[in-house]
C-alpha cells in the first residue's frame, strides 16, 4: 500500500527535515481548510439568523401572507407544509416498513427479485428532485387527474423518501441479532408474530431514525413541489387544494417578489430551525439506540 512518495521519504538523507517542514505546512493548510468550512457554515446560518430573527413573531407564524408575501405571515404555508408531509409519510411509512421488512426478513439473499428491488431503490435514491417534479406533474397531476394539489405534492415526495426509509428499516432489522429469530422459531412462534412482537420492537430505533431523516428530506425539498403542489398561498381547504410549502415560499419571495427578502429570511429561519430540531432528534435517537444496544 505504500506508494513511491512514502518510500522516497524513507531513503533520502535530506528527507527528514524536508518532511518536517512539509508536514508543518500541510498541518496548517488542513486546519485552514477545516476552518474555511466552519466559517462558511456560520456565515450561512448566521446570515439567515441575523436577518430572519427580526421578523419572527407569533403572528408571523399564524397570519396569512399579504401583498404576495411581502407582508403578513406564513400561517397557511406552515399548514400546507404540514399537510404535504402528512400525506408523504402516511403513504411512504407503511410501504417503506413493509418493503424494508420484506428485504431484511423474508427475501433470501440469493433472490433475484430482491436484488432487482434493491438495485432499483439505489437508482430511485439518485433521481434528481426536478425529475421527481416532472414525474409527479405527469403522473399524479395530469394522468391521475389530481391537478396541482397537496395530494400530488405529498405523493411525489413519498416516492422520493421511500429509498431513505427502506434503507433505515432494513438496517434496523439487520441490527437485530439472529439469535432472536432462531429462538422464536425454536419456540414454535410464527414468522408473523416474531416480526410483530420480537423484531419490530428491536428494530424501532432504526425505523425512527429513518422516519426523521425522511421528514427532513421532504421538508427541505423545493424543486419536486413547484409543479406538483403548486404556488397557492391561501389556507388549503382540502388535500385537493394547491398549497405552498415553506421552501417554495422562500424561492418565490426571493426570485419573483421585489421586496420579499425580509419575509424570505424569516421563513428560511423557521425552516432551518425546524430542520435543526429534527436533525438533533435523529442524533439523540441514534445515541439512545447505541446505548441501548451496548447495554443489551
Amino acid at each position, binding site marked *: *500500500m505504500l*506508494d513511491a*512518495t*512514502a*518510500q522516497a*521519504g*524513507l531513503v533520502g538523507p535530506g528527507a527528514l527535515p524536508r*518532511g518536517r517542514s512539509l*508536514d508543518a505546512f500541510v*498541518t496548517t*493548510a*488542513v*486546519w485552514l481548510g*477545516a476552518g474555511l*468550512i466552519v466559517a*462558511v*457554515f456560520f456565515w*450561512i446560518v448566521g*446570515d439567515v439568523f441575523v436577518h430572519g430573527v427580526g421578523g419572527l413573531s407569533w403572528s408571523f407564524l399564524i397570519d396569512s401572507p399579504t401583498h404576495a408575501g411581502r407582508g403578513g405571515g406564513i400561517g397557511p404555508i406552515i399548514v400546507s407544509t404540514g399537510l404535504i408531509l402528512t400525506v408523504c409519510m402516511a403513504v411512504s411509512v407503511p*410501504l417503506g416498513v*413493509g*418493503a424494508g*421488512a*420484506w428485504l431484511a426478513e*423474508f*427475501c433470501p439473499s440469493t433472490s433475484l*427479485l430482491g436484488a432487482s*428491488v*434493491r438495485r*432499483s431503490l*439505489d*437508482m430511485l*435514491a*439518485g*433521481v*434528481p*428532485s*426536478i*425529475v421527481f*417534479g*416532472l*414525474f409527479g406533474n*405527469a403522473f399524479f397531476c395530469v394522468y391521475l387527474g389530481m391537478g396541482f394539489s397537496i395530494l400530488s405534492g405529498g405523493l411525489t415526495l413519498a*416516492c422520493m423518501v421511500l429509498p431513505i426509509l*427502506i434503507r433505515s428499516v432494513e438496517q434496523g432489522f439487520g441490527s437485530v441479532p439472529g439469535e432472536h429469530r432462531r429462538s422464536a422459531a425454536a419456540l414454535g412462534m410464527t*414468522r*408473523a408474530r416474531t416480526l410483530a412482537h420480537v423484531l419490530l420492537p428491536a428494530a424501532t430505533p432504526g425505523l425512527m431514525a429513518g422516519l426523521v431523516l425522511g421528514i427532513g428530506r421532504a421538508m*427541505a*425539498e*423545493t*424543486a419536486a413541489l413547484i409543479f406538483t403542489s403548486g404556488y397557492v398561498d391561501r389556507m388549503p381547504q382540502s388535500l385537493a387544494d394547491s398549497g405552498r410549502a415553506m421552501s*417554495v415560499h*422562500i424561492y418565490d419571495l*426571493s*426570485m419573483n417578489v421585489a421586496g420579499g427578502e425580509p419575509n424570505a*429570511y424569516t421563513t*428560511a429561519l423557521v*425552516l432551518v430551525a425546524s*430542520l*435543526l430540531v429534527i436533525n438533533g432528534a435523529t442524533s439523540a435517537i441514534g445515541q439512545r439506540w447505541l446505548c441501548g444496544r451496548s447495554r443489551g
Partner: protein
Amino acid sequence: MSDKVLAWALRACGIVSGAVVLLIMFFLMQESLPALQRLGLARFFTDASWHPAADASQGRFNITAMVSGTLLTTAGAVLLAAPLGVVSAVFSHYYAPPRVARVHRRLIELLAGIPSVVYGFWGLVSLVPLLNALHPPGQSLLAGIVVLAIMILPTVALLSDAALANVPRSYLDGAAALGLTRWRTVWGVALPAARSGLFTGVLLATARAVGETMAVLMVCGNVVRLPGSVFDPVRTLTANIALEMAYAMGDHRSALFVSGLTLMGLVVLLVAAAGVFSRERVYA
C-alpha cells in the same frame, strides 16, 4: 396461514417500492416521445438557438448552452468541493483532537441538512452582491459554482470520512512504526488505501451537483448563452425545466421531459459507477 398472507403483503410492498423507479422512467419516456419523434435528437444540438414553441416546426430547440451550463457548474463545483471535502475528512481523522473532530463532523452533518433553497437564497442575497461588486452582473457561472460546491461539500466530506474510517488500523500502525511523518502517512498510506471510497464520494457528489436545481436556478442568472468567462450568467438543464415547465405546452413541454430524461440517465450512470467502485449499496 397468516404467515403466508404476511409474506405476500410484504412482498407486495417491496415490489411496489421497486416499481416506482420504473414508473418514473415510463412516464418520462412517454412524455418525451412526442419531442423525440418530431424533433429527433439532432435538432437539440443543431438548431440555431433555444426558442421553444408548442409546435416543433415553429420553435428552435438547441440545448447546447444549457448542457454546457450544467457541465461547467458541475465541473467547477466538484473541482472545488472534492479537495476541500477530503481535507475536511482528513482533518477530522488525523489532525483534529477527538472533541474538535466530533464537533466538526456534527457541523458537516448540519450543513448536509440545510435545504438547497436556503443555499440558493443565501447565494442570491449574500454572495451575488459581492461578486457584482467584483465583476457585474454577479449572477454568474462563478456564483453557481461556489454555491453548488458548498452544497455538495458535505457529501464528499461525510463519504470520505467513512472511507478513511475503514482504513485498517494496521496500515497506520505500520506507517508509524516506519517513522513516517503524519502527512506522509496520510498521503502515502491512508488516502491510497481509502481511494475507492473517496472516489465513490466524489461520484455521488457529482451526481448531486448535476441534479441540483434550486441553488443554481437562484444564483446563475439563467441566460441561455455559452458563457465567455466565469462572470457570465449561465442556465443549467435543471433550471431550464424549473423556469419553463410552468407555461410549456405541447412539444415544448415534451422537450423539457427529454432534458429531464437526459439528467436522470446521467445521474443513474454516476450512481451506478459509484456502486461499482464502492462494491456496496449506495444511496445518495
